[in-house]
């Protein structure tokens, strides 16, 4: 009887252990996870999936006027079924929509990744060089999910000058 009771505790321990593993796999691993790669200037910034889980965070980056910002949006479908969603990317300023960057439907098979790329040209947002900094919000809508990235557009204060060749 004592042996049976002792073994019962062992089985309960094992049940708790496998329950933990199952929770981590089902709740932690399975699902839809998106990663955004932003290249402004020469740096590529990676916005990991868990960034958006922390209290509605907004990512910020900066770029000089005249340059382009390259975006790569990767959706990781860790489910046993395929995933379909409409992805709409738009630019906003002061609560008003400035323009659309991408509007596309993604279809990702089970345990596969889908990718979208687009470019934001600062000269299209502001045709002439500004005298002050401006902020624009890039909003990525994927179904009910919304991601916001603030892009600070700075005036290019020191344009490159041709260096005169010294006489020989």
């Amino acid at each position: 009887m004592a042996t049976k009771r002792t073994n019962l505790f062992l089985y309960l321990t094992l049940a708790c252990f496998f329950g933990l593993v199952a929770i981590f796999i089902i709740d932690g691993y399975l699902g839809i996870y998106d990663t955004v790669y932003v290249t402004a200037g020469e740096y590529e910034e990676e916005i990991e999936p868990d960034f958006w889980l922390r209290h509605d965070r907004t990512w910020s980056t900066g770029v000089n006027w005249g340059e382009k910002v390259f975006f790569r949006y990767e959706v990781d479908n860790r489910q046993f079924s395929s995933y379909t969603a409409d992805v709409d990317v738009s630019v906003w300023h002061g609560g008003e929509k400035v323009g659309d960057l991408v509007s596309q439907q993604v279809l990702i098979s089970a345990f596969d990744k889908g990718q979208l790329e687009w470019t934001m040209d600062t000269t299209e947002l502001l045709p002439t060089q500004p005298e002050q900094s401006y902020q624009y919000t890039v909003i990525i809508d994927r179904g009910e999910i919304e991601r916001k990235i603030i892009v600070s557009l700075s005036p290019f204060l020191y344009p490159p000058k041709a260096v005169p060749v010294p006489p020989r």
Partner: protein
Amino acid sequence: MKLEFILFGFGVLLCLAGIGYLAAEYVKYLSEVGKLVCLLLTVGMFGFLGKYFEGLGW
């Protein structure tokens, strides 16, 4: 008997290492309910393991 203890300890350490790895990688993606259930299961696991060793006379 010694070999049995060593293998038992080795197995427990490996299991804990596996749980630790899963926790380090995926705990940030868990929901609030998932985190609470994990906490309860962890407490239960160590509690029942302690009772098991107590039953063995350790």
